Structures are given as structure tokens and as C-alpha cells.
């Protein structure tokens, strides 16, 4: 679905712009259709820049991006615009992801209007269907972002993104600006999208527990480079690169995830009997997502 080869983006900073910062440096990876690649790394390591590059929201310095067989960096503006709806982005801060001067109705219907060929009634129908899907009620239609909560705004963003009917979504820390309970709900919506629509995801996060729940494979980024890629469990159990080890060992079974489990809000997770205290996790090769999580929980 997505193939990236030697993708690089420099920024210039400092006096006279002489200092070159390599935000993304010779990055190569691929994501198969329907697959979710988790992208983890510390802050400032270039995760967000990489996400924006993939959608060509900013232009790379060099490299290749193949989306569904098309080299998008060689597309003309018009061709690129036609392709854009197929790849969408969810941003970290829901409060700035929406035009503050647009009501939810306008925001969600904009992609539909751009698509063209729909009557006003059809657009309104589609908007209310999308609103229902993401758990918003009709009363939210006329509200602007500052009249909605962060969680509600993120739902509007999801509805707007879904309105484009995308095949690929870059989710850039979509949960980290939200309250814990809201995180679980949005997480539920994202995994639903993944399951029902077979959407391919690049899931960017610094929260390894969420990445672990969401991703099929994980890429670890450090100072602009991808230092390790592999199947999720492989990465978590046998981290090779020192940076990966650091990240994995610092990720704890923190309160957020426990709470989600307790409230039964994560649909992909089923409860299992807790393993004996002190049970050796690595000797228990269960690979379904659900068991993985409980093993982890039992271990700590």
C-alpha cells in the first residue's frame, strides 16, 4: 500500500540558516494494505514530520513515496489533489485540527462537497450518518470547536476524515491530548475503523501500550532514522536496538490502559484469567492481541 524509500527532509536553522537539521533521514519502510504500523520514538525524533511527508503535506528533500503503486512525489498538483482524499491525517491536538470559524456541519461536509456530485440533501444525510457513527448527536452540528470538548472535537475530526473515505490514515498521537476515559472511546472508534473498513494506519505515538494494542508491526524512530522495524510482539519481547530497549523498558502498564480494561471499553481485548504471579511471560507464546495484553499485565 505504502512504500517509502530513502525519504529525507532537511530543515535549516540557526544564524543564516547554515545549520542543517535532518528531521527525517533516509527512512525506508512499507505498510501492507489493512496493516497498522506503529511508529514510536521520543519527542522531536521526526515522527510528526514523517507523517506529514507521507501525505505530501510538506515536501521531502529527497526520497520516494509509492502509494498504491503511484509515485506521489512525481504527481502534478492537480493529480495530487485528486489522490489526497484517499490518504488522511488525524492530529494530536483536536482543538486546533478544526477551523475555529466552522461549525461541525461545515467541517464534516467539506470533504463531501469537494468530492462533488452530491445534492445538499445527500450531503446532510451522509453527515448525520457519520456523526452517529462517531458518537455525536445532531445538537453538535451547529457548534464550533471552542464550544465542544477535546473528545468531541476529535470525533468531529474522525467524521471529517471518514467523509473522505480514506484507505490510509496517518494518526499522529490521536489520543495523547485527551482525557483517559475519552482516550478509550476514541481508541475504540479507531480500531473499529481499522476492522470494518480495512483502513491502513500509520499509528504514531509515544505511548507504547497503545501502540502495542493497535499495531501489527512497529517501527522505532530515533533522531530522524528508523532504527528498528518488526512485528509488534517481536519488538516488545526482543528489542534489539538500544533505543528500542530504552523505550520498551520505560513503558509501564500505566493507569490509562488498566482503566480501559476495567471499563471494558477496548473491544479487541477480552478478559482472560490472570496468569500466576511471577509466571514467566516469554514462555507463554500466545499471540492473539488479547492474551498478549494480559500476559503483560500479569508480569508487572
Amino acid at each position, binding site marked *: 500500500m505504502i512504500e517509502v524509500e530513502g525519504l529525507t527532509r532537511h530543515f535549516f536553522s540557526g544564524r543564516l540558516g547554515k545549520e542543517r537539521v535532518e528531521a527525517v533521514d533516509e527512512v525506508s519502510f512499507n505498510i501492507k494494505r489493512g496493516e497498522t504500523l506503529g511508529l514510536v520514538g521520543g519527542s522531536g525524533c521526526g515522527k510528526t514530520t514523517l507523517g*506529514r511527508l507521507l*501525505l505530501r*503535506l510538506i515536501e521531502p528533500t529527497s526520497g520516494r513515496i509509492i502509494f498504491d503503486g503511484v509515485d506521489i512525489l512525481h504527481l502534478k498538483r492537480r493529480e495530487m*489533489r*485528486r*489522490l*489526497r*482524499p484517499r*490518504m*488522511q*491525517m488525524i*492530529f*494530536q*491536538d483536536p482543538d*486546533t*485540527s*478544526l*477551523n*475555529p*470559524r*466552522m461549525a461541525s456541519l461545515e467541517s464534516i461536509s*467539506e*470533504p463531501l462537497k*469537494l468530492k462533488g456530485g452530491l445534492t445538499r440533501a445527500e450531503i446532510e444525510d451522509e453527515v448525520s450518518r457519520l456523526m452517529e457513527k462517531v458518537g455525536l448527536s445532531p445538537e453538535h452540528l451547529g457548534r*464550533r470547536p*471552542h*464550544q465542544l470538548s477535546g473528545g468531541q472535537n476529535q470525533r468531529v*475530526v474522525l467524521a*471529517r476524515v471518514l*467523509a*473522505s473515505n480514506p484507505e490510509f490514515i496517518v494518526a499522529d498521537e490521536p489520543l495523547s491530548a485527551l482525557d483517559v476515559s475519552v482516550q478509550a472511546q476514541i481508541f475504540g472508534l479507531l480500531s473499529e475503523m481499522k476492522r470494518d473498513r480495512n483502513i491502513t494506519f500509520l499509528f504514531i505515538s509515544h505511548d507504547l501500550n497503545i501502540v502495542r494494542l493497535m499495531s501489527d508491526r512497529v517501527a522505532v524512530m530515533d533522531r530522524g532514522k528508523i532504527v528498528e522495524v518488526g512485528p509488534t510482539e517481536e519488538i516488545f519481547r526482543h528489542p534489539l536496538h538500544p533505543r528500542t530497549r530504552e523505550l520498551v523498558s520505560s513503558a509501564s502498564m500505566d493507569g490509562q490502559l488498566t482503566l480501559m480494561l476495567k471499563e471494558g471499553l477496548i473491544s479487541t481485548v477480552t478478559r482472560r484469567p490472570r496468569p500466576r504471579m511471577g509466571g514467566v511471560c516469554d514462555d507463554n507464546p500466545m499471540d492473539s492481541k488479547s492474551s498478549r495484553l494480559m500476559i503483560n499485565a500479569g508480569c508487572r
Partner: protein
Amino acid sequence: MSRKSAFSAGLFILGAYILVALLSSVITPYSPTALVGRPLDGPSDTHLLGTNDLGQDIFSRLLYGTRATLIIGLLGALLSVLVSTLVGTVSAYYGGGVDEVITRSVDVLMTLPSFPLLLVLTIFFAPSIFVISGLMGVLGGTQGIRIIRSQVLSLVEANFVYGAKAIGAGDLRIMTRHILPNVLPLATVKFVFAAQRYMLMGVGLGFLGLGDPSVVDWGQMISRAYYNGGFALGLWWWLIPPGIAVTLLSVALALLGYGLEEEIDPRLKRSVAI
């Protein structure tokens, strides 16, 4: 005074001025340029504010003078806001070479003091009120470009603008639907304060004898009263009314601008409402 009542008061006074400007021919019995009485008469029933040295009715001139001042202020401000918003938005949105050229030109223009430049240009072109407002608009617009540009620069990097680009919106749509509405509150406030400044500048030009000689304006009234004995003879009804008219209009626009400032940030409005 709360911003809301400041806004209402400013709007009310400005509305009254506009009404006077539109209806001055109905309100006053005399033409502002006709010689209708004895020169230098004091206030009376027939001439509310007396007559000037030529025997023209001062009250009529005062009311008719509203037109020139409002036209100069509002037209000049409209032009300047149009120029600064258009150029500032394009400059910041496209960046690169376009931006570089525009920013450098503005830097050069900004080193020129605008009032003296206006004086010279007004003399160079014939001093009609439309030429004056046009010059003010273009000169003042260049000053505003920087402010609008910096606002747009931060908007271009906003997530929702990236989002709009991602759904396949074109440059024009992004600029008109996503950027402009978010610049508009700032542009409106700029407009009001620009109107205030240009109005005062227009009166200043009139006072210096560079106003449009074919129209009645307050600056020329004050200038005439000053140079033809109004001041020396203590004829307050000749000198004071145009001064008060200018001051009050200026205050009205200041109040309006102050009241509008909260519009820049929609969040400010919410906190006021609570």
C-alpha cells in the same frame, strides 16, 4: 466600561454621524457654500452656529463636512485593509520568492514617514478626496501587510490548514475558507483603527490647506477660522464645533475598535459570556 457597551456606544455615535452625512441636505436649510447672511454673525435662530467671514452658515458647513471626513476615513481604511489582507495572505501562504520580494519592499516602504509622503503625493496628484483616500489606502496598506502576514504565517502551520490540504482543498479554497475567516476579525479591528487615523489625517491635510478645495471639510473649516480671525476674536462657535465633531468621531471609532478586539479571539467571547 465593558467591551460590549464600548462597542454599542461606538456604533451608535458612528451611526449618528453616517445619518447626518446622508441627511445633511435635509436637516440644514442652507447650502454650505452659499453666502446666506452677514459675515461673522453670532449664533442665532436663523444661523444656529452663526456665520463665517464670508457669511456662510457654519452649522450647514459642519453637517456637510461630515461627508468628506467619513469618506476619507472609511474609503481609505477599506482600501488599506484590502491591500494588506490580500498581499499579506498571498505572501505568507506561498512563501519563498514571492514572500521575500514583498517583505523586502514593505521594509523599504516602512522607512518612509507616511504623513510627509502623503503631503508630497497629495500635492503631486490633484488633491481630491478620492485621490487622498486612495493614497492613504495604499500607503497605510503596506504597513498592515506585516501584521496580516505574521497572522497568516501561523495559520498556515495550523493543523486545520494541513487538514484542509489533506482532503484535497485547493489553494484558493484554503485561503478563502480557512485562512481569511480567521484573519477577518483582526482585519476588522485594523479597519476601524485605520479609519480613525485616516480621518484625523484628512482633517490634518485640510487644516494645512491641502484638502480638496471643492468640498467642505472640517480641517479647512478650522483652518479658515484660525487664519481669518476666529481665534483672535474669540468666535468659539466658528472654531470649536468642527473640533468637537472630529474628536467625538475619533472617540467613537476608538470605542468601536476596542469593543471589536475580543472578536479576534472567539475564546475571549466565551469567557466574557460566562
